[in-house]
């Protein structure tokens, strides 16, 4: 089982959760799981855009982009997604 790193993205405008190794998400299954939890999702084929507390982009390779500059909020939103989608946990660096 791999793990996720959660960090501020290069432009500094959002947090990204990056899995190691990269995943191969079935975006149709992911979309179904999110919608079953009443989370609105836009399907852009190679990525999904989901409206949680903040807008979130999920790529097929498992990368998750969370549109907030607040690390604690990003961690909380990723934690919710992780539970919903059974994703690996965030590496705490310990």
């Amino acid at each position, binding site marked *: 089982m791999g793990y996720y790193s959660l960090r501020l*993205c*290069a*432009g*500094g*405008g*959002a947090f990204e959760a990056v899995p190691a190794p990269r995943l191969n998400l079935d975006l149709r299954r992911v979309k179904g799981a999110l919608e079953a939890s009443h989370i609105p999702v*836009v*399907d*852009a*084929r*190679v*990525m999904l*855009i989901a409206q949680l507390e903040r*807008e979130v*982009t999920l790529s097929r390779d498992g990368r998750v*982009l969370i*549109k907030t*500059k607040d690390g604690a909020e990003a961690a909380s939103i990723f934690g919710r997604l992780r539970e919903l989608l059974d994703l690996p946990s965030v590496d705490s660096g310990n």
Partner: protein
Amino acid sequence: MSRGVVLMSGGIDSPVALYYMLRQGHDMVAVHMDNRPFTDDSPLEKVVDHLRVLETTFGRKVPLYVLPHGPTQITLMRNTDRHVGCVMCRRFMWRSAERIAERELASFLVTGEALGQVASQTLSNMRSATASVHLPIVRPLIGFDKQEIEAVARGIGTYSISTRPGLCCQAVPDKPATRTNLVQILHEEDRLDVDQIVDACVRRAVVM
């Protein structure tokens, strides 16, 4: 002097390109292709602030059209080869800008592109992108390198705005094509209702 339409992204280059056009005395109209949800609010905020700085410098108003480009991006992502996504995206930006130019009786388009800086700015990709429009395209920065552009941006007061935190475009593919040919691009567009996409975008333009 004549009237032109400049594409403004919120980045470092486009306000510098606009600066040179205003300095020459051209009457300019700005167009921002709003790429949300593939970006955040920051590009639009930066464009508004860029224009404020340049309007103060030159003492004249530059009208800003904001066009929703996100729905176009979603259509492109669903229906075309991701490898050529940046060129496809640019073709629709140019088409929308040309429509605004028609509305504003402008006779040319302006961009901050400089040769070879990013994937969309190779010669073959520029040709593939701009073959979608008929108006002449002016590129005041075409031979500049990044350091030269940044130096001008610092001097005119737009650099600190451009480099504020923001979200990079999430629609950029992992490996964008750096060399495309027009036949391939036209083949991709055969799957799209181009006029309907541009109509829908331009119809929702907001003037600020």
